[in-house]
């Protein structure tokens, strides 16, 4: 019996050792391994799925035309269910898979958690859509394709003040209310900059109301206060789920101001069972317009529609651009996948500050070494259930 036990444990040791050895096999792969992380299920799944689909189109296009310097890209997107802890787990399993570069994560909260780990590993990280400043703050390896939240807040105030928005009656909006989620880093980040920037604009902020993650089912009070203040426009720097509920409740109380949001509102038309006619006239600030008439956008939209049967949102476009940005900086720096994670990180973060990129989500985009992108925002309005550029 004792002998058997010894033999058994020896066999187990051998099996485990084999396991360890075989996991090193990834280095032998002849491809650039790009990982992605985002919510593929759960409340923000629209974002993650769009990012995965958009990125996959870019990866397939690049591979079909010979890859990067003849090397193909392999793309692997993991689900984080909008949970920071799961996001870090996803990062670890992608590292086990052999990831060279991280294209993610999709949302700000998770991205902050993962960025702490990529910074420690000095892995190059390019997020398509995590817009919080805290994502790039103190992390010189993290770069954004999307605007930072402060820029969205300033951009929104600028747009309402300078370009002007017209209320239902045809008059220029001069009284603005804000409803934001004080428990969310994305929402409160935009809100703070919006309020500061609004001080210098020719409109008044007449009501500021908040809600938290635990009380996001009843907005009747917030809407009532906005209506009492006679707000013609309600600024919603929040995600689409709550926005869909706000639109429903506003309609139930006969309150029809202009609703104005940022990129978090993108996806509102996809909420299951939501009456999309309520979203008629909603304006959102976003860098991508699916009906733009340039050839690249049209080709991308057509391909996305062919594969997934729907119009891509800006998250898909951001991810598509992110993959091309990664290709461009690899070409620019001459980096290879055989370099160590840290060397590759150093090469790419230098390269991204040296290039100028024109893609679906902006022309002549450039990056500061802090990780922020420079580009010009565009506004869209929802008409007849589709996004139309303003």
């Amino acid at each position: 019996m004792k002998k058997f036990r010894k033999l058994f444990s020896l066999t187990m040791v051998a099996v485990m050792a084999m396991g360890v050895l075989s996991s090193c096999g990834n280095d032998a792969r002849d491809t650039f391994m790009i990982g992605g992380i985002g919510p593929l299920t759960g409340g923000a799944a629209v974002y993650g799925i769009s990012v995965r689909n958009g990125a996959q189109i870019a990866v397939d296009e690049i591979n079909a035309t010979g890859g990067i310097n003849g090397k193909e890209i392999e793309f692997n997107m993991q689900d984080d269910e909008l949970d920071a802890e799961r996001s870090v787990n996803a990062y670890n399993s992608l590292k086990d898979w052999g990831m060279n570069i991280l294209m993610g994560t999709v949302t700000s909260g998770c991205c902050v958690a993962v960025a702490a780990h990529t910074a420690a590993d000095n892995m190059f990280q390019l997020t398509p859509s995590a817009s919080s400043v805290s994502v790039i703050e103190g992390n010189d390896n993290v770069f954004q394709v999307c605007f930072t939240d402060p820029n969205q807040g300033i951009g929104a105030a600028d747009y309402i003040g300078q370009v002007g928005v017209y209320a239902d009656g045809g008059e220029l909006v001069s009284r603005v209310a804000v409803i934001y989620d004080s428990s969310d880093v994305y929402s409160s980040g935009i809100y703070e900059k919006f309020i500061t920037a609004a001080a210098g604009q020719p409109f008044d902020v007449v009501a500021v109301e908040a809600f938290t993650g635990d009380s996001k089912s009843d907005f009747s009070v917030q809407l009532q206060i906005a209506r009492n203040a006679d707000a013609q426009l309600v600024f919603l720097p929040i995600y689409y789920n709550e926005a869909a509920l706000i639109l429903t409740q506003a309609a139930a109380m006969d309150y029809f101001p202009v609703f104005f949001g940022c990129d978090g509102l993108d996806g509102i038309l996809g909420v299951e069972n939501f009456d999309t006619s309520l979203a008629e006239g909603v304006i959102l600030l976003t860098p991508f317009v699916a009906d733009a008439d340039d050839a690249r956008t049209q080709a991308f939209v057509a391909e996305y529609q062919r594969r997934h049967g729907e119009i891509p949102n800006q998250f898909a476009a951001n991810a598509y651009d992110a993959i091309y940005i990664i290709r461009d900086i690899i070409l620019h720096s001459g980096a290879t996948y055989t370099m160590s994670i840290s060397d590759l990180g150093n090469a790419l973060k230098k390269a991204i500050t040296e290039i100028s990129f024109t893609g679906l989500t902006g022309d002549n985009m450039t990056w500061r070494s802090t990780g922020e992108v420079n580009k010009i925002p565009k506004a869209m309005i929802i008409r007849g259930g589709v996004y139309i550029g303003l």
Partner: protein
Amino acid sequence: MNFISFLINGLSLGSIYAIIALGYTMVYGIAKMLNFAHGDVIMVGAFTVFWGVSMQGFDPFLSLLLSITICIILGVTIEFIAYRPLRGAASKLVVLITAIGVSYFLQNLALLIFGASTKSFTSIVPFGPVRLFDGQIIISSETLVTFAACLIIMTSLTLFIHKTKPGQAMLAVAEDKDAAQLMGINVNGTITLTFAIGSGLAAIAGVLLCSAYPVISPYTGAMPGIKAFIAAVFGGIGSIPGALIGGLLLGVIEILGRAYISTQLSDVIVFMVLIIVLLVKPTGLLGRKLQEKV
């Protein structure tokens, strides 16, 4: 005018809390346990109607009946499988922890079946809102139905308990389980009946909740469940009129607090109420003071 609007909103929210709180209070009064899975039975009830109306195209009223049936079966099954074996032998804490386990089980089951994304819920109330004073005050049809449902349920439940044999049996079991058994009352049967009524009410509460605040997700029942528990404690846990008063007051406090103090602090105010009540009057507004017998 504003104050009246807020008050109406508060009563609407409070009526829902009251119906949910009834489930807590009845189960506590009779089985002497806190059924923390109650909030998730609400979610199951709402999802059943969502499935019936939005996915299968059934008649809303038929879906409601289906939902009540499913919740009753669910409540009785939970009691039979998870709580009954632990009754008597184990400490009270074990049952409480089991209830939390059941709560997670139901949430994750809903996650598996329906996915985590929030869905818009189509209200099952067939008529439109009532407008008063040139539309200055709008009372939604859901508010009216909820308030009416709350009053009807409260009255019929009180009548049931005081006028019928099974109701009297409930009172007896609540008073003293062992003595009731000696008198020939089927204690297990009475407790099962309590769970059945509580779960049926949970289905109604769930549908009203999701009609008034038209979104649904697997976590829909969690927060209202906790708030209704506070309402039950506030009114005096174990007392049926207490659940009504506690629920209505809590709803009004939450909405008025949000309107006149701070939209961010509404939950803080609600939980403050719980702490103050526990400090000042631990048995709640209408709770009975029980003397420990030697």
